[in-house]
């Protein structure tokens, strides 16, 4: 089997699915919590539409909180703009590793969330270490893991809307995210300076989250940029 055909084998997709499944399961659980919380505030059609069109747990939970406090449209839009700022940075990091047409990248952009960003970067790094194209692997991983997380979020929303509960797994699902991001950080650390930058980001994020909790959603961007700035050009 040639390297090219091996690269296209279903095994690659299965590997992405296997890597994504724990996060997708956690996303399903949080989707059910969102569906249950959103139903009385948005009604069934808008709850479904919000998950289909927005596909952002952090933003959708924030919107529910604002709606519960009777916030107006401008507050909702401003919150969306603020919470989404980090996508600009995540997109820029991915852009530096992606070619392809603008239309193709525009389609992939719909699946850009924290988790899929992490899986895509990790897959690109692994492919490059193995002498393959990181770009193709990043594209494929963003698409497959993005689709899986998207389906999980929609299913979870529907489960929550139907009033079904996934008992006693809320906290267990919450465990997945720190564990996942610690693992992704470890994978992304290729040299001691990366470890130092990661530790710097931890300190900055903790300080920001404790002192300015309203801005905690921006912490990954602020910390990521600040600790990445020092250093040589290449």
């Amino acid at each position, binding site marked *: 089997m040639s390297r090219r055909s091996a690269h296209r084998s279903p095994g690659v997709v299965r590997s992405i699915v296997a890597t994504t499944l724990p996060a997708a399961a956690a996303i399903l659980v949080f989707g059910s919590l969102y569906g249950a919380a959103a139903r009385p505030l948005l009604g069934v059609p808008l709850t479904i539409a919000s998950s289909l069109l927005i596909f952002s747990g952090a933003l959708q939970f924030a919107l529910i909180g604002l709606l519960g406090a009777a916030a107006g449209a401008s507050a909702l839009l401003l919150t969306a703009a603020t919470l989404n700022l980090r996508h600009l940075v995540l997109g820029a990091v991915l852009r530096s590793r992606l070619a392809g047409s603008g239309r193709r990248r525009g389609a992939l952009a719909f699946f850009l969330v924290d988790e899929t960003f992490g899986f895509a970067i990790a897959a690109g790094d692994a492919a490059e270490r193995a002498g393959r194209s990181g770009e193709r692997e990043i594209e494929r991983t963003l698409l497959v893991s993005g689709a899986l997380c998207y389906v999980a979020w929609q299913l979870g929303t529907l489960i929550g809307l139907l009033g079904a509960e996934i008992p006693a797994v809320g906290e267990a699902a919450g*465990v997945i995210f720190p564990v996942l991001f610690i693992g992704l950080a470890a994978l992304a650390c290729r040299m001691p300076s990366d470890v130092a930058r990661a530790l710097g980001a*931890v300190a900055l994020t903790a300080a920001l989250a404790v002192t300015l909790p309203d801005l905690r959603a921006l912490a990954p961007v602020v910390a990521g940029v600040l600790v990445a700035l020092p250093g040589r050009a290449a």
Partner: protein
Amino acid sequence: MSPVVLAGIALITYASRAAALVFLRKPGGRFAAILGRMPAPIFASLATLSLVTADGSLARGPILWAALGALAASSTRSLPLCLVGGLAGYALGQALS
């Protein structure tokens, strides 16, 4: 929330995701180097955020134990092993609490 506001939020969200991916020229030089250094700090920051609650306090004990388990396994640089380490830490935390 009206359907129009929902559509506006969806548009803002998609635009934020697509802006850099679609319209940014492939970065080079110092900008590319900076972007290349960002994944590890971003992941570390996201991990930290998931360990600090919205009111600024630390997450519950078993979740912290899970993070410790994942950290202990992180030297393997294997995502599945970090997951196993995290779940083992969580189980230990549950047993201790």
